């Protein structure tokens, strides 16, 4: 899709591929035939620039015809670059960082108020964690003990203009969240068993929101993309696509 549409953000999509697979295959209660089913788990992708990866999963699951893939990022297409709620199965549109968590917090408050048991899961990026609105929501979620809320951080440690530690160091991230009264865990975000195990112990602690740091590699699986800033923006040429597919297949 990104090759046909000549879109960027490929590295951001590859870093969360395993997380999305575990979520949609093993964790989220969703129904492709009833995308608005009230009992569904709410999944908010706050790093909306990775929306194409979610579209891929939703298309495979049958939320919409896979023929839509051809129109991603292209004229007359149905799949816009940043994730859109006009696509069946997408809970919320994002694209500007720092928006997902406050909205997920509101969804969690509303669910608890009515005694509903669905979970609210928000997937964020390093860049999301730079935003003040994210930290406003972190404080609020802990204040109100929202243990039906889970944040997963696709912690690939690269952002738009450089390595996260050089731009705005988030460390020690786990300790920061624990100090903010969240229950935090860390796993290898490319180890599907580890991610699956962690997400099957939710909430990590009763009375606290859960924060799962997934240590990932930006551009994972494609040697010339891994841990590079350039894969945040660059689109993929014909030659690069062929090479990348060979590498990923291994």
């Amino acid at each position, binding site marked *: 899709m990104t090759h046909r549409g000549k879109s960027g953000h490929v590295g951001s999509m590859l870093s969360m591929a395993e997380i999305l697979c575990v979520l949609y295959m093993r964790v989220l209660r969703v129904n492709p035939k009833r995308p608005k089913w009230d009992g569904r788990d709410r999944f908010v992708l706050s790093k909306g620039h990775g929306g194409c990866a979610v579209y891929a999963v939703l298309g495979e699951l049958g939320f919409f015809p896979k023929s839509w893939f051809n129109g991603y990022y292209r004229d007359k297409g149905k799949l816009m670059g940043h994730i859109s709620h006009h696509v069946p199965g997408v809970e919320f549109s994002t694209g*500007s960082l*720092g*928006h997902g968590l406050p*909205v997920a*917090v509101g969804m969690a408050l509303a669910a608890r108020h009515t005694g509903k048991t669905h979970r609210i899961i928000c997937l964020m990026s390093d860049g999301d964690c730079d935003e003040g609105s994210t930290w406003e929501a972190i404080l609020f979620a802990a204040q109100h003990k929202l243990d039906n809320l889970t944040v997963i951080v696709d912690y690939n440690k690269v952002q738009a203009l450089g390595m996260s530690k050089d731009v705005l160091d988030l460390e020690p991230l786990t300790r920061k969240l624990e100090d903010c009264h969240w229950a935090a865990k860390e796993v290898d975000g490319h180890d599907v068993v580890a991610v699956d195990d962690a997400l099957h112990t939710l909430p990590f602690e009763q009375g606290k929101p859960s924060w799962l740091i997934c240590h990932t590699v930006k551009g994972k699986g494609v040697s010339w993309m891994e841990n590079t800033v350039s894969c945040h923006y660059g689109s993929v040429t014909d030659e690069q696509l062929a090479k990348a597919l060979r590498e990923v297949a291994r």
Partner: protein
Amino acid sequence: MRTLFNKVLVDIAKKDKRIWMILADIGYGEIEPFRDAFPDRWFNCGVAEQNMTGVACGVAMEGNIAITYSIANFPTLRCLEQIRNDVCYHNANVKIVIIGGGLAYGPLGVSHQATEDIAIMRALPNMVVFCPCDFAEAEAGVHAMIAHNGPFYYRCGYKKEPPVHAGKIALKLGKAIQVRDGADATIFFTGTIGNQVLPAADALAKRGIRCRIVSLHTVKPIDRKAIVKAARETGAIVTVEEHQLQGGMGSAVAEVLCDEGAMPKKFLRIGLPDLYVSKVGTHEWLLNEYGLSTPKITASIRKLLQ
């Protein structure tokens, strides 16, 4: 007006369990009745307007009506992107209520003076922009706001504004209310500045200038028919708003007149000039300094119609 707003809201919320209040540590002395009556639907986010708006949106996405409420620019400009991307784009049922539009907070200064809000809010797709002028419009407006499904901006007055309408009103969103008729000009106003406009019209009447007075309580969607009709029937259009001239209600009226080819013979927008208020004084004193008091409005309209 803010006291009335909160009272009416509590009354409605007793019957409508969908109504939540999401605050950002503002509303002392006014919001306590809602908090005490519905503690499970009342949340104070602390001084965090972006989160307030995002949380309100999330609450609304689950089938509720979420009201954010704060002073002047705090629940609008501070969190404008949350209003645009989260609330308006998703057409979420969030109501943004500000207390003290225009220069109402007088000596507190520029941070507390909402002088660009109408222009900015009316630029957002899906948003309704509502500015009540007195208690009658304010009360009816709360009911209309709750009945409307979608984003809503409510510019609430700060104090005991005197009545503009003599009796009961039938308020309908997007439908202007004629306060009195006149053949020489039409004065459109929005919001509590109506208090200054009515006595100005009285002063003009004593000099033989009879003005039609119309409350444009809903700036968006705007009452196009009332504007065109006024231009054709009275020939002169004056707009008065406690807001900067760029992009406000007067601009919206001018857009309609041009779009509809209903150019009046005379046209005047009265509002704040393109500056931040640097003078210090009470609300009333500032209105006079910036051309929005009754005598200044009267003089401006006399000059136009000479």
